[in-house]
C-alpha cells in the first residue's frame, strides 16, 4: 500500500511541491510532443481535420483508468488516498459549456497554452493573459455565481454508480468506446483532410486489441461485486462501520459540520424524542436524501436497535457508499451511555466522565 501526499495531509509540503514540479515537467513534455503546442492542431478536432486531441487525451485517460483499476484491485492504492472532486451538476454543466466556447475561440486550454507559450506561440501567451483575467473575473463575480456551486451537488460520485452498472463492466464498455472513437477519428481524418495514417495500420490494430484485452481481463480479475462485498466484510470485522455513542455525542456537541445523522425510526417516535441534530428519514428514501453526503464527511444511522441501520448500511455500501456508520447499541445505548445521569449509574463514574455526562445532558435534553 502506497501512502500518497494527499492521504498524509502533506499536499502543501516541500516534498509535494517538488513532486508536482517533476510531474509537471513530464506533463508539459508529452503535451508538447503530442503536438499540443499548436492551437491550429488543437482546434482541428472541432472541424474534424485533426483528431489528435481525441486520440491523445482518450488514450491517456484509458491508460490511467486501467492502471488505477489494477493497482486498486491489487491493493497498492486505495480510493481514500486519492483527491476526488465532487460532482456538482450546476457548476460542471455551465462551467463545461463556457469552457468549451473559450477553448474553441482561444484555440487553447490552460495546460496546452503553457506548452504552446514555451514553444514560441504568441497567441498562447495572449490566451494565458486572458485566463489570468478570467480568474480575477471569477473572483469578482463569485457571489453572483455561488448558487451554481451547490446546484445539483451530489458529493463524490462514480459514473458506474450513477449508471447503476458494475465497475468492471463500465471499464470494459468505456474502453470499447475509446477504441471505436480512435478508429472513427482516423476515418474522419482520412475523409476530411486526406490523412488518418493509422487507419487499418498494424499499430492501431494491435494497440486496440491490447486495450480491449487488458480491460476484459480486469473484469475476470475482479468479479463485479466482489470488491464491494470484500471491503464491506473487512470494515465490519474491523468495527469500522460502528460509531460509539460517546464519540457521536462529542462530535455533535462540537458542532461538526460534516456529520450527517439519520434517524430511521417511525415518524411518531421521532417526534417524541430524537438525538439533537438528527433527521428523520424513511428507509426507501435514504439513497436520495443521503446523495449529497455520499463519501463526504460521516453519515451515522440509528434506530432503536441495530438491525435496520445495519441492513441499510449494507444496502448503501453496495451502491458505493463508504462513509456510513451505525450507532453502537442504537438509541437505547445512546441514552444509557450518554444521557443517564451519573447519580443513577450502578458503576462508579469518574469526575471527568461525570462532567461530560452533564455537558451532554444539557445539550441533548435542551428544549
Amino acid at each position, binding site marked *: 500500500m502506497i501512502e*500518497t*501526499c494527499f492521504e498524509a495531509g502533506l*499536499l502543501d509540503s516541500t516534498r*509535494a511541491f*517538488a513532486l*508536482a514540479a517533476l*510531474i*509537471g*515537467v513530464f*506533463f*508539459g*513534455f508529452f503535451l508538447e*510532443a*503530442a*503536438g499540443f503546442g499548436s492551437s*491550429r492542431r488543437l482546434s482541428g478536432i*472541432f*472541424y474534424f481535420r485533426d483528431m*489528435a486531441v481525441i486520440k*491523445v487525451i482518450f*488514450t491517456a*485517460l484509458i*491508460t490511467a483508468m486501467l*492502471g488505477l483499476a489494477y493497482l486498486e484491485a491489487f491493493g497498492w492504492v486505495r480510493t481514500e488516498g486519492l483527491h476526488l*472532486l465532487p*460532482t456538482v451538476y450546476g*457548476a*460542471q*454543466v455551465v*462551467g*463545461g*459549456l*463556457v*469552457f*468549451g466556447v*473559450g*477553448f*474553441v475561440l*482561444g484555440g487553447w486550454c490552460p*495546460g496546452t497554452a503553457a506548452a504552446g507559450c514555451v514553444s*514560441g*506561440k*504568441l*497567441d498562447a501567451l495572449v*490566451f*494565458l493573459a*486572458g*485566463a489570468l483575467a478570467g*480568474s*480575477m*473575473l*471569477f*473572483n469578482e463575480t463569485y457571489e453572483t455565481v*455561488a448558487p451554481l456551486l451547490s446546484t445539483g451537488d*451530489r458529493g463524490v460520485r462514480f*459514473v*458506474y454508480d450513477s449508471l447503476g452498472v458494475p465497475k468492471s463492466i463500465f471499464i470494459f464498455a*468505456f474502453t470499447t468506446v475509446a477504441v471505436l472513437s480512435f478508429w472513427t477519428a482516423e476515418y474522419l481524418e482520412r475523409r476530411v483532410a486526406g490523412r488518418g495514417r493509422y487507419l487499418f495500420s498494424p*499499430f*492501431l490494430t494491435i494497440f486496440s486489441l491490447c486495450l480491449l484485452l487488458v480491460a476484459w481481463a480486469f473484469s475476470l480479475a475482479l468479479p463485479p461485486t466482489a470488491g464491494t462485498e470484500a471491503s464491506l466484510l473487512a470494515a465490519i470485522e474491523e468495527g469500522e462501520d460502528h460509531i460509539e455513542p460517546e464519540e457521536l455525542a462529542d462530535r455533535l456537541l462540537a458542532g461538526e459540520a460534516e456529520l450527517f445523522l439519520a434517524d430511521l425510526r417511525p415518524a411518531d417516535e421521532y417526534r417524541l424524542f430524537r438525538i439533537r441534530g438528527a433527521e428523520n428519514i424513511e428507509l426507501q428514501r435514504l439513497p436520495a436524501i443521503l446523495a449529497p453526503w455520499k463519501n463526504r464527511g460521516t453519515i451515522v444511522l440509528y434506530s432503536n436497535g441495530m438491525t435496520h441501520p445495519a441492513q441499510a448500511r449494507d444496502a448503501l455500501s453496495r451502491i458505493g457508499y463508504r462513509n456510513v456508520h451505525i450507532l453502537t447499541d442504537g438509541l437505547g445505548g445512546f441514552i444509557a451511555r450518554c444521557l443517564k445521569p451519573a447519580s443513577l449509574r450502578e458503576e462508579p463514574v469518574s469526575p471527568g466522565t461525570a462532567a461530560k455526562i452533564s455537558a451532554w445532558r444539557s445539550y441533548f435534553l435542551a428544549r
Partner: protein
Amino acid sequence: MERTQRPRRGAYMNPYVAGIMLGVTLLGSFLTLGAGLGASGGIARAAAYLERLADPARVEASAYFGAWGPRPLRYYLVFMLGGVFLGGALSAFTARRFSLRLERGRACSVSRRVLSAFAGGVLAGWASRLASGCTSGQALTGGALLLTGSMVFMVCVFAGGYAAARIARGQWDD
C-alpha cells in the same frame, strides 16, 4: 547532404504513444501526490498573487481569492504549472519546434486572432474556476477516476466547443 537518421524537423510523437505517456504521468501523479494533473489551478493562484501585488486588502476581503491566504503561490498546482512550462520547452527545443509566431490562418488578421485568443482565455479562465478544473483537472483526471461530474464536464466542453466552432472557424482560414 541530408542526414536521414535525424527525425524530421517538427514531426510529432505518435499520438497514441504520447497518450500512453501522459496516462503514465497521470498515474504517477495519483500514486505519489494522490491527486491528478491540473493547470488552471496554478493560473488562478498566479492571478490572485498578481492582484495581491496591486491591492492586497481587496484580495483579502474577496470571497474566492481571499480564502487562499497571504501566500497563494504555496500550492502544489503552481509548481506543477511551472513544470509544464519547463517540460514543454524541453520538448519544443529538443524536437526543434520552437518558433516565435502568432498561429493563425493566412486569411485571419492579427488583431482578430489576438482578440479571439484573449476572449477565449477569459472564458476558459472563468469557467475553470466555476467547474473547479479544466481539461486537465476535470476532464482528464476526473475522467480517469470515473467521476460522474468530470464526465459531464467533458461532454459539456465538447458541446460548447462544437456549438461555437462556426464563429471561431475564420481564424484558421487560409
